[in-house]
């Protein structure tokens, strides 16, 4: 924090820490295109710039040019990891405009798909964190056990990742008792593993040394900078849209909102483990209490083709925090406006301050602890005007030249 004041020297050494970007909800080696430029005085980070725009695909404009039905497929490709959540949010907003309500069984199935997504997202980011701190075998183990969840997701929705499960008035596939039995078996295998990893994160010395007291965000700062999701809940802020809005079937399914008060990177990862366990319990509850008599899959030929003028807000709790959709219809087959506000916007752009004062090796740890989702973030038109500056160090930025500057173990 006092980094800026403490620099009495006349020049700042720019470490071209070309995060191109290794750290995502993914593998560090999977370059997600975000650039963090860190300025360091020796080992200490004194300034971080967030450069974005590599992933801007113009989705909001695209949504205005396509019909309401096609937009389901477009918005679920905002982010591949939380695609069900995006689609659910959009579909609920349009359902408000149409005035239709899915059956209770469909609502339960939607929650089932979204909670499976939350488990796999949280396991993924914890695996990435293990990789970042150099714990490769743990990374591989978590990724192996994550495959059980991917398999369950495939059984429920029909595809491992992007399944386009949501449709106006329900879902697009139903479960039968055979599938429910399979899902229960898979869950029984994965829950002990999640518990084991949680224990590992609590007890392992290497993990504790790298994560504890790194990237501390005080509760007042978390609210001031508008952090969302696990990043806020790890700072003691109890916000969860599932609990406050009780959308879909969340009002009927019991769950706890996980809050921790340690405020550091470790707490954020622990919140994710606890939430994964909580979600696994929710999935179990849903499988036991699935309403039996209604139809979950609407007849797609009978869905309304005319959309009345109107506007609607919807919000959901994505794995990374609160996700908001605003949909406006002017009576045409295409929406007049679709506005998307994703949690990663807050969690990445507003947090450049929290790197200051830590060492360069902590930088990837702190970045990973926000669970950055670059593809979510960059529907925004954030145009970087300083192109001239970028041209000075193009190759290093591009090819991860920063690796020359830091220990390869901690670089990405």
């Amino acid at each position: 924090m006092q980094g800026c004041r403490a620099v009495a020297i006349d020049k700042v050494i720019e470490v071209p820490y070309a995060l191109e970007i290794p750290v995502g909800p993914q593998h560090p080696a999977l370059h997600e295109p975000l650039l963090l430029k860190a300025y360091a005085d020796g080992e200490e980070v004194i300034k971080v710039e967030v450069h974005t725009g590599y992933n801007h695909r113009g989705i909001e404009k695209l949504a205005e040019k396509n019909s309401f039905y096609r937009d389901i497929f477009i918005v679920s490709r905002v982010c591949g990891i939380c695609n069900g959540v995006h689609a659910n949010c959009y579909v609920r907003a349009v359902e408000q405009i149409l005035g239709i309500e899915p059956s209770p069984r469909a609502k339960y199935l939607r929650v089932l798909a979204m909670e499976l997504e939350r488990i796999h997202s949280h396991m993924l980011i914890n695996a990435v964190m293990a990789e970042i701190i150099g714990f490769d075998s743990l990374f591989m183990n978590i990724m192996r056990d994550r495959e059980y969840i991917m398999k369950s997701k495939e059984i429920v929705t029909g595809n491992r990742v992007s399944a386009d499960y949501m449709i106006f008035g329900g879902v697009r596939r139903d479960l039968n008792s055979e599938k429910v039995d399979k899902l229960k078996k898979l869950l029984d295998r994965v829950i002990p593993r999640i518990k084991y990893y949680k224990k590992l994160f609590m007890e392992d010395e290497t993990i504790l040394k790298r994560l504890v007291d790194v990237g501390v965000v005080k509760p007042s700062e978390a609210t001031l900078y508008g952090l969302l999701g696990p990043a806020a809940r790890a700072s003691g802020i109890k916000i969860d849209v599932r609990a406050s809005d009780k959308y879909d079937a969340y009002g009927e399914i019991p769950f706890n909102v996980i809050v921790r008060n340690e405020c550091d990177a470790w707490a954020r990862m622990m919140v994710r483990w606890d939430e994964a366990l909580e979600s696994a319990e929710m999935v179990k509850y849903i499988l036991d209490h699935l309403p039996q008599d209604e139809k979950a899959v609407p007849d797609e030929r009978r869905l309304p083709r005319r959309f009345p003028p109107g506007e609607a807000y919807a919000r959901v709790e994505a794995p990374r925090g609160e996700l908001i959709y605003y949909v406006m219809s002017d009576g045409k087959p295409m929406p007049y406006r679709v506005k998307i506000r994703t949690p990663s916007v807050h969690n990445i752009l507003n947090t450049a301050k929290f790197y200051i004062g830590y060492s360069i090796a902590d930088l990837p740890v702190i970045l990973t602890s926000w669970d950055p989702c670059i593809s979510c973030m960059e529907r925004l038109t954030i145009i970087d005007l300083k192109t001239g500056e970028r041209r000075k160090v193009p190759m290093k930025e591009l090819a991860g030249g920063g690796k020359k500057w830091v220990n390869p173990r901690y670089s990405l």
Partner: protein
Amino acid sequence: MEKENKSNGKAKIIRYTPWLVHFNTGACNGCDIEVLAALTPFYDVERFGIKLAPSIRHGDILVVTGAVTKKAGERLKRLYEQMPSPKFVIAVGTCACTGGVFAKSYNVYAGADKVVPVDMYIPGCPPRPEAIIDGIAKLLKKLEQS
């Protein structure tokens, strides 16, 4: 676009241990996590000697995901130029093949082949890890015959 590195016979030297470099040019992460799943124990491409390279300058195969946004497109081109020859490009996912749902957007080139020469297309949204492994294995077979 010219493919200068195909006929000189050097391609054979990488067929036992091709090193991958993954570049996200504006993908939704769906393909990225499937590439990742292909690299990790359940699917495990390391049994083919395939490994992620730490830097583009060590890479043999560039795995491109995403619809190639205009800003990332420049980067993709420069990345390709920095790779040592022989070099190959795999386009993973419908977006990298043709642009997918984003093809008509104002900010994408819609397809990796608009920017760099592509040797193998793996369509799917996202392609399953099996499909990705199949694509890589087929490319390696092609190298053997070249």
